């Protein structure tokens, strides 16, 4: 049996999914968190079923890619658990009626029951059940309240044919709401006033600036702190010396020993890069992101940035994929499914692949630059943001079509829950350790092989016109261009041991930033946008990286 979790965006489907299956999935306080379906198994007594977490949809008449995926899923389900937000019954019932029209057996989870109580919304559950003709169970997904009852009533799921025109549907909804819902009128609470402060111009701009500064400061501060005071000393004193000693004792001098502990030593850099250098920033970034996601601030930030973003051909909602792209480019690309048009998705993804460093690359860039000069770090980011804005404007002019208006539900603020934040950070960490770290080690191994075998020398000769003449970097820096194909941060870490001047460091960081995102991004691009687009992006990133690096190099030599 296949059970679909369906409902409007941001009603708690993913939290419910995690509860039912024990599988952690990302849940955040903004509409459009889930953009692809996720399967899991529910085992409860004699009941064993497949549960599918579906992207949120307001209607079955899709308005973006994520909703399209949801609509396609409907045909596959045997039962639907329609999750609805008890605090916004009217809007949520619209999808409920549409689902009833599909004649698929259904149970309703009246979620966010705690918030409804808190906001003075009372719903007559029995009456609602009678009117809809399917079981209705109040739930609080975050605490687990009502979930057992929900599962117990799955066998009672029924299909109930409803048919009506758009207008009839709304008047039916009006009828239902009138009969089941009582509102205790409450005055504007302090919380609401704080909520609105983030959207209104006079207070919203300062709030956004403070939020951005605190977020950046926290990522860099926590990341640096972890690295300098905990991870680096730990690896330098407790891990690396014994490894060096052991290898020196066991492996005779020569090629293999160099591969293991020499320049680009697999047992030194292969461990140090992913765990002591990148990991602290990754942790810090995802911690800060999780808190931002769960508070409900992001849709407000989207609102603040809408006018500015429109100049680059996308609406404010694109800030969410962009922010996720600062974590991982792939996550950012998938998240563009929440945008309405292919045009917007293409603009956002192109800019992201070029100039948004993922968390791992940020860590590497900070390690490369910040210890020499914080100003150099700020400069690299400034260039990236200027580039995004200018190229965004150019793409907006070049690509046919118009930018759709921003339209987004602004959720209430919620206080981030420590366990769910911790779970989310752990999920990202786990996928980094399992998927990325082996690749980084592989990249280091390639570098060591190229270096020790002397192949790098020949590659350096071959790439000399670009690396040395155009970019002004030493010939060995060509290793960065090779490793950069594997992963974004490797293009940066490869420069670490090279003893570069400040100008070379900046040029190197810029080239690495604009260069090919990472090998794993290309198949995602192909799947989402087609082979042609993926090829164009891959080529463009290489060419633009060289142009940007070359221009900077020339500018620096002329003016310094």
């Amino acid at each position: 049996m296949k059970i679909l979790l369906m409902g409007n965006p941001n009603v708690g489907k993913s939290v419910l999914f995690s509860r039912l299956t024990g599988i952690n999935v990302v849940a955040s306080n903004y509409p459009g968190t889930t953009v692809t379906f996720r399967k899991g198994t529910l085992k409860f007594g004699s009941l064993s079923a497949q549960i599918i977490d579906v992207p949120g949809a307001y209607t079955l008449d899709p308005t973006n890619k994520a909703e399209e995926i949801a609509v396609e899923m409907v045909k596959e389900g045997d039962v639907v658990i329609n999750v609805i937000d008890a605090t916004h019954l009217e809007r949520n019932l619209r999808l409920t009626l549409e689902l009833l029209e599909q004649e698929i057996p259904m149970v309703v989870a009246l979620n966010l029951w705690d918030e409804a109580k808190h906001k003075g919304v009372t719903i007559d559950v029995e009456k609602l059940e009678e009117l809809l003709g399917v079981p209705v169970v109040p739930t609080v997904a975050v605490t687990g309240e009502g979930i057992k009852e929900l599962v117990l009533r799955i066998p009672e799921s029924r299909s109930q044919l409803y048919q009506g025109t758009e207008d009839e549907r709304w008047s039916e909804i009006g009828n239902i709401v009138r009969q089941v819902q009582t509102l205790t009128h409450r005055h504007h609470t302090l919380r609401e006033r704080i909520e609105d402060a983030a959207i209104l111009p006079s207070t919203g701009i300062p709030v956004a600036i403070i939020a951005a500064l605190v977020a950046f400061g926290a990522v860099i501060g926590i990341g640096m702190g972890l690295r300098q005071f905990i991870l680096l000393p730990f690896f330098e004193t407790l891990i690396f010396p014994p490894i060096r000693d052991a290898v020196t004792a066991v492996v005779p001098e020569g090629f293999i020993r160099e591969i293991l502990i020499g320049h680009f030593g697999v047992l030194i850099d292969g461990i140090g890069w992913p765990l002591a250098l990148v990991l602290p920033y990754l942790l810090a970034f995802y911690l800060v992101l999780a808190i931002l996601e769960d508070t409900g601030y992001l849709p407000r930030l989207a609102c603040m940035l809408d006018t500015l973003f429109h100049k680059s051909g996308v609406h404010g909602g694109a800030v969410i994929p962009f922010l996720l792209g600062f974590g991982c480019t792939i996550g950012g690309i998938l998240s563009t499914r929440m945008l309405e048009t292919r045009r917007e998705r293409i603009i956002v993804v192109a800019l992201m692949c070029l100039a948004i460093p993922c968390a791992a690359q940020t860590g590497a860039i900070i390690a490369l630059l910040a210890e020499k000069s914080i100003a150099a770090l700020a400069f690299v980011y400034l260039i990236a943001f200027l580039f995004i804005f200018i190229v965004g404007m150019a793409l907006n002019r070049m690509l046919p079509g118009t930018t759709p208006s921003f339209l987004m539900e602004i959720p209430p603020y919620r206080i981030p829950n420590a366990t769910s934040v911790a779970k989310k950070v752990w999920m990202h960490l786990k996928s980094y350790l399992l998927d990325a770290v082996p690749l980084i080690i592989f990249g280091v191994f390639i570098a060591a092989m190229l270096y020790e075998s002397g192949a790098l020398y020949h590659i350096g000769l071959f790439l000399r016109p670009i690396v040395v003449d155009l970019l002004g970097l030493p010939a060995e820096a060509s290793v960065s261009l090779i490793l950069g194909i594997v992963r974004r941060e490797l293009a940066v870490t490869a420069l670490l041991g090279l003893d570069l001047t400040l100008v070379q460091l900046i040029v190197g960081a810029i080239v690495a930033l604009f260069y090919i995102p990472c090998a794993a991004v290309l198949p995602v691009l192909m799947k989402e946008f087609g082979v042609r687009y993926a090829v164009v992006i891959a080529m463009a990133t290489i060419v633009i990286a060289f142009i940007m690096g070359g221009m900077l190099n020339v500018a620096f030599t002329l003016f310094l």
Partner: protein
Amino acid sequence: METKLLELGTGKAAVIKRIEGGYSSQRRLTSLGIRVGQTIRKVGSGPFNGPVVVEVDRTKVAIGKGMAMKVLVEELPT
């Protein structure tokens, strides 16, 4: 008297009278509960001609300027 939602005063309540514009933007608005006959309250608007934020069915919805121009409302007496 009908006014554009864009021009409605902050804090004012109004009934939606008409939604102009193409099918796709109508559909997006309706799916969020912004439809003819619905009562809304304007919470404010974002900076530099930013989106209009309205409260509808106790949810807040941000509506970009382009769309907010096409939603025609009649102000309710306070």
